[in-house]
């Protein structure tokens, strides 16, 4: 830990207090989602639960973010909704990044027919508006955690293919790639050990920014009703359902909305910091 704070990387990252604030926010939220069952004031409010005596309570000491029209604590539900956002965000990247990276490396390195087939396929995916594509997929499949993740991944990998493709195109002419080649390195070695490590800074930065886009996308799907289905809490759905009670019972939409805003903002600030630290353009 001390080595980290004394490193050059940390020095560059910490030049902007906003990036540090972003990172801190992410860490706090991540921690909170992990221990949500322990700290949530009303864990039973996550599921099917109705409390007619306490419907539409304004924010207060008992209910930090107020309650919804079923009398459920919004703070608790936001904590649990964060779990979904985080999990789906990470899973989408876990699928889209490896797929995108492998295809990008192959297309960029070999060129020719491989290049044409892979890159034209990405063009097809990129030509469709991402939200519409995800909505189409979600409309066809059952809304579930797995299917949401799948739908978003399907439209996310082409961006990574593009990024890695462009980097590979320029890196394969670097002296050290040629040098590895003349020292008898295999293509696999060149792709994984020479080119890929030099893509990592751009990749990490893009992943940080993409976490915020994926979280927004999940919220958008939830907002139109294609996200997690009730009673599972979903930030987008909570905003959508609270709208009916605006402007009097404002807390029902505003707090879940703020929750989205803070997480998205945090990942963006963190991404900015990474970009400065790693000195890349994405």
């Amino acid at each position: 830990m001390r080595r980290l704070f004394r490193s050059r990387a940390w020095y560059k990252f910490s030049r902007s207090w906003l990036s540090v604030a972003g990172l801190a926010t992410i860490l706090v939220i991540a921690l909170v989602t992990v221990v949500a069952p322990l700290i949530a004031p009303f864990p039973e409010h996550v599921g099917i639960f109705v409390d007619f005596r306490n419907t539409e309570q304004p924010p207060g000491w008992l209910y930090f973010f107020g309650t919804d029209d079923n009398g459920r604590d919004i703070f608790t539900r936001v904590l649990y909704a964060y779990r979904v956002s985080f999990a789906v965000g990470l899973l989408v990247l876990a699928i889209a990044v490896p797929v995108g990276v492998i295809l990008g490396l192959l297309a960029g390195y070999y060129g020719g027919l491989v290049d044409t087939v892979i890159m034209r396929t990405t063009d097809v995916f990129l030509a469709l508006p991402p939200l519409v594509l995800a909505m189409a997929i979600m409309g066809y499949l059952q809304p579930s955690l797995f299917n949401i993740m799948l739908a978003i991944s399907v439209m996310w990998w082409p961006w990574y293919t593009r990024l890695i493709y462009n980097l590979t195109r320029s890196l394969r002419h670097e002296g050290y790639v040629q040098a590895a080649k003349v020292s008898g390195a295999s293509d696999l070695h060149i792709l994984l050990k020479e080119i890929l490590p030099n893509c990592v800074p751009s990749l990490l930065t893009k992943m940080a920014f993409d976490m915020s886009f994926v979280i927004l996308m999940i919220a958008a799907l939830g907002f139109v009703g294609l996200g997690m289905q009730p009673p599972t809490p979903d930030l987008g759905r909570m905003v959508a359902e609270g709208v009916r009670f605006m402007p009097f019972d404002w807390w029902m939409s505003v707090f879940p909305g703020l929750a989205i805003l803070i997480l998205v903002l945090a990942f963006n600030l963190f991404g900015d910091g990474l970009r400065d630290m790693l000195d890349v353009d994405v």
Partner: protein
Amino acid sequence: MALLETTDLHVRFELFEGMSHVLNGVNLKVERGERVAVVGESGCGKSLTARAVLGLLRHTNAQIDGSVRFDGSELLSLSERGWRSIRGRRIGMIFQDPTAALNPTFTVGDQLFKVIIRGGRARTKRRAREIAREALRHTAIADPDRVLNAYPFQLSGGLAQRVLITMALVNEPELVLADEPGSALDVTVQEQTLRLMRALGDELGAAVLIITHNLGVVREFAQRVYVMYAGSIVEEADVDTLFHAPRHPYTRALLEAVPRLTGEMLPQPIEGVVPDYTAAPVGCRFHPRCPHAQPACQEPPPVVDLGGGHRVACVLPEAAP
């Protein structure tokens, strides 16, 4: 049998502008343990020759004809696997810019160990480290461990160059290709590079094919020289003969164009430029720039053997200087 022999090597590229016929029948030979230079202007095909010899023109749109024989076996028909068993083990290469030839994301040691392990000299990293340490000491690096643990950007140009020489020579190849070694560095470091390459080459009995545009380097380093112009060898001779009795008009012009330290005379530039390869001159490719050009130059020039390994591709091989 020569160690390396290219016979009538042609390389063409298909471009929008048409067929670019860059290498136009290159014949060169390197004997075991010999230091040979290929010299010529920028863009005359020197580096391309080296790349063709190492099979680096795959995945490009190059069309290659002719033959490249290494130790008696044909290289151009090798599979990728076959190439890999040659590259780094039997043929090493040294690049122009040493800092660009090291991967910035790994330490020097990691990269050097990989080369050693790949070359079959060691199986474990520990053993590779011993070999690397020894090899670096050989290149007059006093503190090998510091260099092995350093990242490339922490090395000076001279150190990086020595590391690269070590990488090229550590597997004791029979032939080393050096593409303008050290020309991205300042002259004193370049001088060191050449000395080191000569010393190590002699010690290992490795042949060196050096590619350069610097006649000073040729004079100092090589035993035999090929002068290349626009994708053809125009003259070949041992170093003394070439510098004292050059026969091809291009060789002479090249020698005239060298700046001198005395400062009495400005060098004489060669008029014109290296031709466009999509519409290269017919016959002798130098004739549009040649002061002695004549109608016969429209035909491919004969290669005249003047004895003692001195050959010149010109219709006027006896022309007085």
